[in-house]
Every structure is written in C-alpha cells, then in structure tokens.
C-alpha cells in the first residue's frame, strides 16, 4: 500500500469493487481506501459486507456498502447508480466477483448447460453490463481504469475448470477488445491474474492445497494497485500476472 501511494495516480477518486466482502476483493477495497479512494464495495450478502465497510471506516477510510448480485441483469443499473450516488464519479472499477460454478469442480461432459450459463452470467455478462455503464463517463473524462480479475485457468485448459476457464478467457478477450476500441481515449482496461491466493474460493476449488505456498490477498492487492497506477508497464489491453510483476524500486 505504501509503495503504491508513492506512485503518480491520484487515488482520491471513486472506486467500485465487486465481490468485496472477502478475499482479494476485501483486500483491494482496504488498500484503495487506505490510499484515499472513496470505495463502493459490492457483494451479494449485506452482512459480511457491512463488517468490511465498518472495518475500513474504523481506520479512517471512506467506504460504502452496496448489496447486489452481479449476475442479475436488473441489479446492474442499481449497483452503478448507488455507487455513483455514494462515492461520485467512478475512476477505478474492479471486476473481482466471480463464481467457479458447482464445486467440487466437474468435467465439461458432466457440467450442466445451465451451470455453464450461470457461470458466464456472473463472470462475463455481469461485468460487461457494469463496464458498459461506467466506462462511457470515464472515456469522456479522458481517464479511468477497469480491471478484470483473471486466472491462469483463462490460459491453461485445466481439466474440470471448464466453465470457469471459459468465462475467464472470454473476460480477458473482452478487456482486449474494449482496449482496442478505446485506444487513445485515456482509459485503460486490464486483465490481471492474481496467482494462487489463500482465499475461501481457492479452498473450494483446491481443498487439499498447501496453504503455506499461497500468497496473501493483501500482498496481491498491493501489487494490483501498483499496476493500476503504472500506465507505462500496465498499458490498456495488457494481461498482467501478479507473481511475475516486479515492483518498481
């Protein structure tokens, strides 16, 4: 966090993070708020989200809770409206919420079509709907960053990770096409693979993992903030991998 705050971006702006009640989303919200951003946290369940917001406020940060399900088409304009009503113009949007689909993970031939569609709704279509609302204003202002939290499953065809891997590969490409269409406008659209982290989601996917080998969400969040602030090494359309990112000295 302290490293990121030394870099050039003005952090004192509105930020929106989905899936913000736990894991990487929570860590990103805390890191952004610690740097002075006004943060709108989105998650399905108001209870745990309220605890995170209270914790950020207790440390002097500006945070607001929005209960909403990113996979629900009717919820998207509400989420965007609440966020901009509460924190003003959004300059940083992070699509962190995602679902694995049913766990234990299944082979594609055992994956129900409805389950694949539901994963795409949460991981691809929902973020697309939300970006569509937020990105236009960023383009007219000439600045803004949209981050899609990706996964190595977007690149490597891991057996049983079918629905999730397909959704993340599509999301990466969505980011690249947005970047191509909006080249030169001052906004950046990124995909960031955070690497393997010690989170609830990871435990659901890989229950027998050695947790000592997994990185901490707070460390990953600090690196993602560096990427957000570094337009040169993280240009629009880039797909970045946190474990390969060298912090600027």
């Amino acid at each position, binding site marked *: 966090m302290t490293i990121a705050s030394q870099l050039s971006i003005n952090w004192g702006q509105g930020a929106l993070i989905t899936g913000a009640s736990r894991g990487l989303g929570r860590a990103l919200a805390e890191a952004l708020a610690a740097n002075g951003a006004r943060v709108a946290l989105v998650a399905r369940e108001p209870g745990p989200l309220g605890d995170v*917001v209270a914790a950020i406020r207790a440390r002097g940060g500006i945070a*607001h*809770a*929005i*209960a909403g399900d990113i996979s629900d088409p009717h919820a*998207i*304009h*509400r989420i*965007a*409206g*609440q966020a*901009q*009503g*509460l924190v*003003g*113009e*959004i300059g940083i949007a992070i699509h962190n919420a995602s679902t694995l689909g049913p766990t234990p993970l299944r082979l594609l031939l055992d994956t129900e079509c409805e389950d694949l569609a539901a994963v795409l709704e949460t991981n691809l279509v929902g973020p697309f709907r939300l970006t569509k*609302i937020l990105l*236009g*204003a960023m*383009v*007219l*202002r*000439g600045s803004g960053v949209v981050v899609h939290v990706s996964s190595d499953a977007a690149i490597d065809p891991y057996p049983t990770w079918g629905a999730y891997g397909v959704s993340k590969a599509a999301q990466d490409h969505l980011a690249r096409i947005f970047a191509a*269409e909006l080249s030169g*406008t001052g906004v950046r659209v990124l995909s960031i693979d955070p690497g393997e982290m010690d989170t609830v989601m990871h435990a659901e996917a890989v229950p027998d993992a050695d947790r000592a080998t997994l990185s901490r969400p707070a460390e990953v969040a600090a690196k993602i903030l560096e990427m957000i602030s570094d337009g040169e090494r993280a240009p629009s359309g880039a797909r970045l991998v946190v474990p390969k990112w060298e912090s600027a000295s």
Partner: protein
Amino acid sequence: MTARYAGAVVGSPGTLTESIRSSGRSTQLATDEVPRHRVRLIAIDRASDHVSLRPFSELPGLLRADDLVVVNDAATLPGSLRGETADGTSFELRLSGPIDGSRLTGVLLGEGDWHTRTEHRASPPRLDVGARVRIGTLEARVSTSRGRRVELDVTCGADSLWQALYATGVPVQYAHRDEQLALWSVQTSYASRPWAAEMPSAGRPLTWKVLLGLRRAGIEIATLTHAAGLSSTGDDALDRALPWPENYEIPERTTSAIARTRARGGRVIAIGTTVVRALEASGGEAGSGVARLRLDAGHALRIVDGLVSGLHVPGESHFELLGAFAPRDRLRRALALAAANGLSGHELGDAWLVV
C-alpha cells in the same frame, strides 16, 4: 425507413411549403419512441435559411473540426417513489433534484400512477413539517412543506438510503407511455452521477459510434453535470414556474475546452437545453452553481453557439428556448419538414440541431 435515410432532404422555403401543401400535413409530429440508433435529425442553419433532414449518425459531418460538443453526464434517478403517511394514505413522491445527504427533495402526487395525466391526479395528502412518512423501507420526516413541494429527511444512513431508493424507485414518466420505463432505458451512454429527475434525453442518440466519430473528426467533447428537474408537476401554478433552480457542476477541463474553442474560432454545441442552462448560468466559470435563469427568445447567448435537442412545437417552453438560437419562422419550417417526414416529437424521439 431506409428510404427516408437514403439522402438528406434539403428544404428551401418554397419547396417545403409545396410539399406540405401537397401532402396535406400540418406540423403535427408523430409521437412514437425511436430506437437510439435510428434517430433522425433536422439540421437548422443559424446563418442561412437552410433546414435539412439527416440521420443523427451524420452529426460529426454537420459540425466543424474546431467545434466543441458539451454533454450533460447526469444519470437519471429512479425518482418516482411510493409512500404512505402515518395514517396509511398513499402518495407518490417525485424527486425534483439530487439527493443531498439524507434529504429528498420533490413533489407529492396523490394516489395512482403515471397512467393518469399529472394534472388529473388526485390531490396528495397534506404533509406538515414534522410529519412522519414511509417510503418503501425508508422512514422519513417532513422538514419543509410548501404545498406539493416537500423536503424529507430520511432517518437511516446513506448506504441504506441509496439501497432503498434503487430497490423501490422507478423512473418518473408520463401518461403518453403505457409500459413502465426501465431504469436502463432512461440513461445516456455516458451517464455518471444520478442527479437528473428526468433523462437529459437530447444525449440519448449519442451512441459511441457517433461520439468516437466526433473525436475522429477533431471535434472535442466535454461534460458537465446538470440536475435536470421535472417537466411537469400536475399543479398549474407550479408548472408555470418551471424549470425551477437546478444544480450544476462544470469541471475545469470543460471551461478550458470552451476557452480553447473560442480561441480557435470554434463553436460550442450544447447537447440538450440543460447544458444551455448550465453554461449560460455559469458565465463560463468552472465549479458548482445553481441555474436560476429562464431561457427564451429574448436571451442573448453568451457561451453556447449551437444546440441539439428533441423536437418541440410552438407553445412548449423548449420551443420558446430555441428562439434564442433561430427565428421562429425558421423553426416552424424545420418543424414542417419534420412533420412531413414523420419525425417523432416524443422525448425518446427524433432531434434537431440548430447551429
């Protein structure tokens, strides 16, 4: 539809009168909703006598490389809220401006909904200062009451207020449209903070194809935020005083863009009358303010050189405002051209450009 788009129809006074006479049409505009990709535009030249009909998507070609386009980036609030007094009488609260902390400012209407014309709606219950009301899951206390105009203080925190607002509110709409408007259908493609009681609808046909086309043509685009208010309250006396004072905020990058445009001899084109109101009220200064001026044919424009807006007929306040840009007879000819070609005067309809 395609045939109408095929070529620009250029009207000179003589030919236009002819075509209207022969088709027997008056300046009655159609009232259908037009998809945002299909909007047509009547271009009115302030300097000459020309009016022409184009697809809206040709806007970049109708402006000059030195021009600046200014849009209102206010998102539209779900400003129609159902409420109940302590004794169980129901009412509708229509927000007339942005939410200020925990304060809702709006107009009360009696039982019923948009299907009934506002002027025919039942009178709202009288709410005195201090009265408690319930709006969806929100509890509120009346802090100001001037007839139908009220200010309510919500007792919960900001997060709960905004959650409840978007859970229960729907866009304000009027009797000419039967189906409920969806929240997404009343947003421009660049909407940001939810400040507008009604959609700044002149920006609706600005698809990203058009916006990026403007940029490619060397035309700058700048934003301001203007809290567009209600267009009708159902109360004659109140309606005569519309538009009420409206909050606006103009960023410095926009006033710099205006100064640059002036310096190079370009023109400032407002997308919508709310942009005209904000810019003319501001005198070109950046910052927050309240627009109190009422624009009409007598107003000498100081900042704005051109306007894109929905079509309006004589008698409507928007038409009178257009008088500040072009003589009435030219506007009437433009309307005749619009009517002869079936253009729509719906707020989600077709458009005109005066520049």
